[in-house]
């Protein structure tokens, strides 16, 4: 059996919670009943998985069989919302006696969690809760700003373990608008409208001209059209997701043509911070070139924000 197939099977089985293990293996029907009975299902999961993979190897499982197992896993609703909630709360309570945790089920496999933090000796502060929205079918969770940074590792751990993941990564993406964050992260923002006719943009421009006074002549019409085209290619026709900030932290060593000088000898890198703020940052960036405030195309550092799902950047010398 191919090593990659073995690895794939191993990882797929690892994802199955122990409570569902038997059901899924039976549904898969690849390992016969009598062989399954020889396996010790009470041992640690890692060892169990190893045994199962060995069995699959001996039966020469193919990629097709592995794919079938994967489909079966998806089909069975593995994610048990109640189990997540109880696990999450348990983890928090084990670490911190004074904490209030509340849940509310929302649309599309999403759960809203409200956490009020206390300390060992103080009751939870109900006026400064943290909200978390977890989408169970995705590896994403959204949290509100947490005043007590010291609780963040605990929150991360609770989320990771309760949701059956291995680790949690904080994305450099922040905004006040949950819908916009969702749109960026689930890549739902670029709903392009169908255009059957490729000359449609040109038609739009012509219409504009007709509304204007014929006594006004735009000398740089061709350039304007180019700018419109480039802007449309970069940002698309659709409304942009809503962000308020973009922040760039730059760390670089001073470079100079002149040898010597105080700055040239400085060992520490120079740091600077540039912050863009706007009620609707991406729409503002989109309108920069057409308004004549910047050249088109814009710097990729600005235009990559929805694609990369980041609006906080750290730029260092390579």
């Amino acid at each position, binding site marked *: 059996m191919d090593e990659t197939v073995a690895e794939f099977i191993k990882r797929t089985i690892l994802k199955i919670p122990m409570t569902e293990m038997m059901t899924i293996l039976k549904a898969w029907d690849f390992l016969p009943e009598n062989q399954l009975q020889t396996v010790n299902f009470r041992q640690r999961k890692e060892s169990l998985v190893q045994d199962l993979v060995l069995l699959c190897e001996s039966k020469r499982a193919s990629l097709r069989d592995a794919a079938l197992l994967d489909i079966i896993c998806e089909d069975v609703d593995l994610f048990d919302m109640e189990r997540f909630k109880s696990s999450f709360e348990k983890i928090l309570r084990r670490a911190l006696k004074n904490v209030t945790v509340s849940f509310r089920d929302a649309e599309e496999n999403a759960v809203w969690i409200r956490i009020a933090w206390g300390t060992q000796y103080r009751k939870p502060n109900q006026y400064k809760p943290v909200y978390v929205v977890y989408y169970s079918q995705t590896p994403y969770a959204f949290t509100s700003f947490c005043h007590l940074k010291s609780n963040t590792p605990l929150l991360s751990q609770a989320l990771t373990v309760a949701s059956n993941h291995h680790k949690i990564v904080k994305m450099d993406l922040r905004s006040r608008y949950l819908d916009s964050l969702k749109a960026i992260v689930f890549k739902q923002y670029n709903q392009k409208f169908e255009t059957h006719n490729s000359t449609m943009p040109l038609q739009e421009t012509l219409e504009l001209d007709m509304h204007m006074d014929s*006594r006004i*002549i735009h*000398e740089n019409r061709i350039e304007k059209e180019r700018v419109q085209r480039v802007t449309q290619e970069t940002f698309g026709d659709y409304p942009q997701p809503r962000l308020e900030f973009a922040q760039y932290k730059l760390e670089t060593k001073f470079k100079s043509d002149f040898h010597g000088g105080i700055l040239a000898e400085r060992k520490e890198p120079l740091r600077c911070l540039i912050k863009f703020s706007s009620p609707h940052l991406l729409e503002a960036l989109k309108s920069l070139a057409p308004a004549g405030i910047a050249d088109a195309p814009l710097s990729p550092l600005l235009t990559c924000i929805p694609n990369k799902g980041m609006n906080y950047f750290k730029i260092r010398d390579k």
Partner: protein
Amino acid sequence: MSVLRPLDKQPGLNTATILLVGTEDALLQQLADSMLKEDCASELRVHLARSLPLPSSVDRPRIDLIVFVVNLHSKYSLRNVEESLHYVDATFFLGKAAFLATGAGRESHCSVHRNTIMKLAHTYRSPLFFCDLEIEGFRATMAQRLVRMLQICAGHVPGVSALNLLSLLRSSETLAPEDL
């Protein structure tokens, strides 16, 4: 022939053409609209350009007045005007060119100092107007002034030439920037 010259074409009958040069298209468009709303005996034409030199076109009428629009909030707009000035013949600066600075009202947003634009206008011996084009009232007044000025520059006002007007405007200036 990329340099603009004031008298290289025949004038159109009763036509007066103004060229507005500036990076911020929306402001230029609004100013043009305001100008065209004015009652005017002459036939007005407004050409909007982002920068000079202009794309070559045979069909352009003679340009009677050039107004360089600088947004004091943007160094980019100043630099654009400074570079465009190289494509204007010196004879335009005998009353047929002017500078318009917008955005002075919001001082905290200004990245171009007033003295910078004043010095530029002084270097080119041309009048400088400060007007916040975003404010409709100010824009309408400015449009009125520009229309009157345009008519004079096109020679439609008997007895007054562009050069006359320039010397009239200059004598009413207070002090040169160096004296400030």
